[in-house]
């Protein structure tokens, strides 16, 4: 595409400056995580300093950190696994056996995603309180699964729909039955699609901060809620905040870089490709 075009130095320079500016807050945070608390707040800010790993060992030494990290992992992976298991059959059926209701069902699912979470905060909170699910992982797993189910169904639907028709027809002509076609031809074809759907969903769950702040306190608090505790004035240690933040976002930055392309597909419901 544009690889054929010649190099444009002016546009390139501006683009690189913009890129460095956008990334700077993250770079600055990672840098601060290797400073001592004193160096982190000093003026003028230190660009060169004696790096320390003290903040990281302090964070790990906090009894609750591993618990919080584990909560994030369990909640986002649990919710994603559940959503995939429920959504794959639905997306498969809608892509390969469309009925008169398929289009309406897909669009209705999309519209449920538009519900503002705060609009149902009261009933969900009261329900969780009544059934003793406040501050439990299972509550967040269920909520995140339901919250993202429309996105998961849609993404999987577009992947199933876009599988090359010719390969599937060829296997039919070769005498494969429906079961064989699904397991030996279709599934390997859509596996990358399922993987990237799962990846995007894990990212969305990992960073979710409305329900996690409102429905958890200590036992089930994931990283988003843990970081929020640094907003209290007595907890304001910049170097430690930076170290905890770096740990919290590092895995998801890596995941995110892998799923750049699928992000567009997932978050625009196929409206932009």
């Amino acid at each position, binding site marked *: 595409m544009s690889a054929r075009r*010649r190099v444009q130095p002016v546009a390139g320079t501006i683009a690189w400056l913009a890129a460095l500016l956008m990334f700077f807050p993250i770079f600055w945070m990672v840098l601060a995580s290797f400073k001592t608390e004193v160096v982190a707040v000093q003026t003028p800010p230190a660009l060169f300093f004696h790096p320390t790993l003290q903040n990281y060992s302090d964070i790990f030494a906090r009894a609750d950190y591993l618990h919080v990290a584990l909560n994030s992992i369990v909640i986002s992976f649990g919710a994603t696994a559940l959503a995939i298991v429920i959504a794959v059959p639905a997306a498969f059926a809608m892509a390969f056996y469309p009925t008169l209701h398929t289009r309406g069902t897909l669009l209705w699912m999309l519209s449920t995603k538009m519900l503002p979470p*705060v609009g149902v905060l009261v009933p969900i909170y009261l329900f969780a309180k009544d059934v003793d699910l406040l501050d439990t992982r299972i509550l967040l797993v269920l909520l995140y699964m339901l919250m993202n*189910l*429309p996105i998961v169904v849609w993404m999987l639907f577009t992947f199933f729909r876009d599988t090359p028709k010719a390969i599937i027809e060829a296997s039919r002509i070769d005498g494969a039955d429906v079961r064989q076609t*699904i397991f030996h031809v279709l599934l390997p074809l859509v596996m990358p699609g399922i993987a990237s759907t799962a990846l995007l969903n894990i990212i969305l769950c990992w960073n979710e901060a409305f329900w996690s702040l409102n429905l958890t306190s200590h036992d089930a608090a994931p990283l988003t*809620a843990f970081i929020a505790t640094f907003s209290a004035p007595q907890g304001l240690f910049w170097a430690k905040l930076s170290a905890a933040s770096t740990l919290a976002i590092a895995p998801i930055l890596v995941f995110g870089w892998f799923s750049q392309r699928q992000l567009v597909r997932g978050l*625009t419901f196929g409206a932009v490709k």
Partner: protein
Amino acid sequence: MSTATVQGPAAQRAPRGRRLGGAVNTLPLVGPSVALLLIFSLVPLAATLYYSVIRYNLVNPMLHGFAGWSNYKFLLRDPTLYQSLWISVVLVGEVLILTVGGGAILASLFEANFPGRAVARVLVIAPFFVMPTVSALVWKNLLMNPVNGLIAFILRSLGLNAIDFFANWPLTSIVVIVAWQWLPFAFLILLTALQSLDEETREAALLDGAGPIRTFLHIELPHMGRAISVVVMMETIFLLGVFAEIYVTTAGGPGTQTTNLTFLIYQRALLAFNVGSASAAGVIAIILANILAMFLVRAIGKRLDEQ
């Protein structure tokens, strides 16, 4: 949740799928997803509507019984409601201008060929993957703190006065943080849209002597038109729900200067335990979101028919 439906002849046509052959009962396959979403959307909605017409305060059990419209009457006479709606509109509007404008310009720049483009693109996208509590606290402390923050240092080195961002411009400060998080989203979608612009149009413009700015304004921008409308609608829906950034930086203050509708409902529900009033405000939030969702669902439905 939305009651938005798409009318017209297209609504009766199933999307073109590819049959694998064989008669399959799709109900057990589609059923679980539909049932779960139906319960998840209808039950809480019905409960919100119910709570909005009763007297219910978690800290005052003496209050009970049918309230009729009184929760709505009190709410609609309350100036903080209108203020919070206005703050929501300003927040969404300003972030949209920054992200769509910045995203379109960046997308155009990244369409050019230059060394290290893939790496630079990754750097631009990175903020989108930072959890909201992290980005808000890093901006508020490391960058915007009036005494030790980096921006204060830069201003002072230039001989200017340091600015206490969150005291003087609390809403603008939140807008900056939220825009930083959402610019990558707009950028990525607009870049995807721009990549479908065919090379011949571009070359024709170049031959006709159009410079980069005129190419951007007259060729690239119109080409991104539909993608921009999708970005605007998606972002609006997400941005009306901005919560964590306010929660960890200003907690709605100073006063109520950064209390958007989402934060107002949170305060009424979980800080004041006024279930009736919070639910009435929740109903208003749902109605607003549904109006927006109607347009978005229609746009996406059109796209579905074309494929």
